[in-house]
């Protein structure tokens, strides 16, 4: 409350708890599928339903995914890790406790570097721990406050979660957004995350406002100052954009309160995406006591040797740098081509087989450009990258022109779903064979003696006229450069 009197320059302090669903085939403590299900409560078993007598068994795939994240964020991974019970009652929690980690999380003391505009920033990551996702609640006939009744779906219960807790290092909402984008990029590269899955990223943010004078030269803020400032916890954020909007709103709300001499309440607030505001959850803010204690059903897990065997792929920043050096790409192209691991892998496949520049043009400009125009992602044509590769092959072999390849074939592939060979055949786009071009060249010379005369007289425009004639005869499928060359040879 101390900040109420201060009306000088104000600084915003934000820390995040990011819940990330780890991409594994099965749930963290049972063999149920994590795939999206059409019917509620179908991907369930006694374990994830928390039925009496059922016991958890750890999915090592979830641990492996967490170790990969730990390596990617330079975290300390302990020799052994273990699980605790977090005890609280909530209708989406099958056992009324959540199996989580407490004093020996799988990752500690990491960091993540990212760019905000031209500035490079590094945010400390205190810890990242494994836990089970609760079920999901469907409020019928209203919101959480006004619904007539609520249904529980346990399909999500037991999905592996990694809760990533940052230091309070963010100074504005734009930084949070940039951080989340970078985090997703890294997770996606590691192959442990599916951004397209509903609820795969959920953010709780702690935000407080302090006097600018309390912020040290290195951007740090004294722990006592943070403790003294009332903070709000903003929940229900599920995207980068949402995070930026929610926290920009909340920062302004707190600043306004302070500037008007009102105290900021320490409370939990709910981000209402549709209204674009945060609202007090009105629950009495009592000190939470989760009564953490060791989960005896899961023996401690030795990761000392195992973690050495877990490799991670080249991460986005490193790959970007290598692309620039190895393929001579400019910053913009390198950024585009490393935006997701799938794109970068596809680019390298094409570069290896054809030509680095051709591949760059085709992936960064043509493919991403046409997709972007249609509001599509590469993931939307997951199974059809082979067709794109075939198209590039046709171009590289000079069987079709670059212009036709992009403007006719690629667009038709995306719009009508046809494959490249079909489009080429049906549209008659195949480059005319040498014989046909040669015949057209000879015919053009024979039919246009005037132009031939002009050519010999040294008139440069005459050759262009003859090229046009040949192009017309071949339906535009000949290469103008080749035609020019053939004409000059025939006229000598």
């Amino acid at each position: 409350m101390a900040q109420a009197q201060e009306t000088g320059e104000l600084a915003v302090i934000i820390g995040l708890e990011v819940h990330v669903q780890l991409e594994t085939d099965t749930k963290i403590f049972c063999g149920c599928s994590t795939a999206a299900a059409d019917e509620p409560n179908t991907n369930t078993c006694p374990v994830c339903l928390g039925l009496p007598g059922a016991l958890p068994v750890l999915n090592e795939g979830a641990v492996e995914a967490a170790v990969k994240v730990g390596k990617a964020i330079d975290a300390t991974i302990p020799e052994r890790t273990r699980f605790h019970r977090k005890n609280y009652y909530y209708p989406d929690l099958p056992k009324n406790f959540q199996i989580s980690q407490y004093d020996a999380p799988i990752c500690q003391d990491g960091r993540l570097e990212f760019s905000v505009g031209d500035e490079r920033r590094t945010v400390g990551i205190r810890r990242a721990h494994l836990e089970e996702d609760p079920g999901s609640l469907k409020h019928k006939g209203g919101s959480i406050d006004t619904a007539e009744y609520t249904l529980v779906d346990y399909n999500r219960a037991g999905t592996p979660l990694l809760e990533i807790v940052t230091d309070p290092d963010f100074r504005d909402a734009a930084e949070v957004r940039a951080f989340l984008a970078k985090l997703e990029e890294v997770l996606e590269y590691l192959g442990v995350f599916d951004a397209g899955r509903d609820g795969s990223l959920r953010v709780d943010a702690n935000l407080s406002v302090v006097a600018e004078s309390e912020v040290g030269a290195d951007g740090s803020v004294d722990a006592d100052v943070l403790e003294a400032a009332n903070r709000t916890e903003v929940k229900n954020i599920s995207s980068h954009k949402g995070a930026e909007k929610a926290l920009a709103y909340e920062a302004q709300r707190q600043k306004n309160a302070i500037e008007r001499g009102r105290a900021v309440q320490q409370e939990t607030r709910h981000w209402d995406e549709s209204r674009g505001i945060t609202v007090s959850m009105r629950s009495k803010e009592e000190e939470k006591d989760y009564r953490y204690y060791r989960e005896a059903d899961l023996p401690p897990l030795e990761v000392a040797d195992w973690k050495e065997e877990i490799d991670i792929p080249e991460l986005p920043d490193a790959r970007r740098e290598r692309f620039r050096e190895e393929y001579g790409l400019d910053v913009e192209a390198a950024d585009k081509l490393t935006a997701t691991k799938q794109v970068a892998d596809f680019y390298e496949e094409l570069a290896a087989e054809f030509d680095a520049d051709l591949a760059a043009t085709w992936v960064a400009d043509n493919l991403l450009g046409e997709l972007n125009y249609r509001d599509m992602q590469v993931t939307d044509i997951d199974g059809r990258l082979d067709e794109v590769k075939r198209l590039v092959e046709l171009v590289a072999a000079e069987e079709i022109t670059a212009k036709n390849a992009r403007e006719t074939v690629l667009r038709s592939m995306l719009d009508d779903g046809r494959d490249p060979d079909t489009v080429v055949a049906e549209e008659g786009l195949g480059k005319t064979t040498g014989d046909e071009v040669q015949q057209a060249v000879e015919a053009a010379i024979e039919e246009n003696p005037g132009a031939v005369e002009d050519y010999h007289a040294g008139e440069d425009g005459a050759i262009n006229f003859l090229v046009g004639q040949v192009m017309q005869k071949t339906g535009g499928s000949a290469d103008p450069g080749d035609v020019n060359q053939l004409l000059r040879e025939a006229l000598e």
Partner: protein
Amino acid sequence: MDYNAYVTEERIEGAEEGRLAGRTVAVKDNISTAGVRTTCGSAMLADYVPPYDATVVERLKEAGATIPGKTNMDEFGMGTTTETSAFGPVENPAAEGYVPGGSSGGSAAVVAAGDADMALGSDTGGSVRCPAAFCGVVGIKPTYGLVSRYGLIAYANSLEQIGPIAPTVEEAAELLEVIAGPDERDATTRDASEALGDGEATAITGDVTDEDGGYDFVSAADGDVDGMEIGVPTELLDGADDAVVEQFWAAIDDLEAAGASYHEVTLPSLEHAVEAYYVIATSEASSNLARFDGVRYGVSGGYDGDWNEAFARAREEGFGPEVKRRVLLGTFALSAGYQDKYYKKAQDARAWVKQDFDEALGAADVLASPTMPVPPLERGESLDDPLQMYLADANTTPVNLANLPAISVPAGETGDDRPVGLQFVGPAFGERAVIRAGSALG
């Protein structure tokens, strides 16, 4: 006579062939049976029908056993007399008018009465051994991790094991062979021979596996205790009933006559074992029983007010007073500000108890004590005085704290014909040692 030993009498037939074919094995009502209600002796679960079998039930069925029904028990295993059951108390077939012990009182009673050939109980702080002692039958509490707990409805999951109850040591050992062994659905199970390692077999224990690689407990039940060294922890005799102590020494005399020798040992940590046990067990219970909120099964809390109120109503209605007492105690012991004072201290005491047992078992093959410091209590005697009931667990709870195997075998009767049980405690996965010792008294 009806001892009220079953909550549900419904036959579950096992495979046609198998080593238990033709025999009946009653199952305690906290062990899940697919399609047959499993109540834990609680009104909360009076209508709960599990959709799956516990691992031990699967193994019984594979071995050809017939399960004649689900046996009565103290509510959620919380009691020493089988009087806290929502389905009424169980009579002691071996001592009319007295309690059968608990919490597996129904399982011990059906075996003592001859209504079932054998039974399964569960032992969190003595719940197999106590009723075995009070009903004059044999009960084994296995090493933690020997028997799968998958499907056992948890009271205190770091302490409990499912164990056999039978008329003889040999039959109890046979039933243990059927249910023991690692289970991929219980991450705390271990393979006994792996846990023991090479060269652990002694003249007393012999090899835990037979030629086929299966567990062999039965061959240890040969009554041969020649050369066995028995440690007697004096703390477990102090304060015991005179008639019980008399029978205890008579049994030790018999063992000496058979070639065993004994020495007294002191385990100072045992003074704190009951307190540590009740702090740990109630703490775990407060968490394990949290899921009983009336949402998906059990007593419903109705739809008035918010969910918190509905949960509270379901738990108010569904749980009996002893369960409420222990959930409250455990919630308190784990709370911020008290956890260091109670739960953490209890864990320290547990480590100390383990260490004391390890030391004592370094100089002895088994440790011996009365199973219960008292003979069977009169019905109703302890209900108004929970502390008296808790203190009766002084000799059994330390074994659960130390994760060790123990057996209770009949060792005579008091002057007024009440059964007395003798307990042998062995080293981790030393089931064969306690079976051998127990079989000498059978």
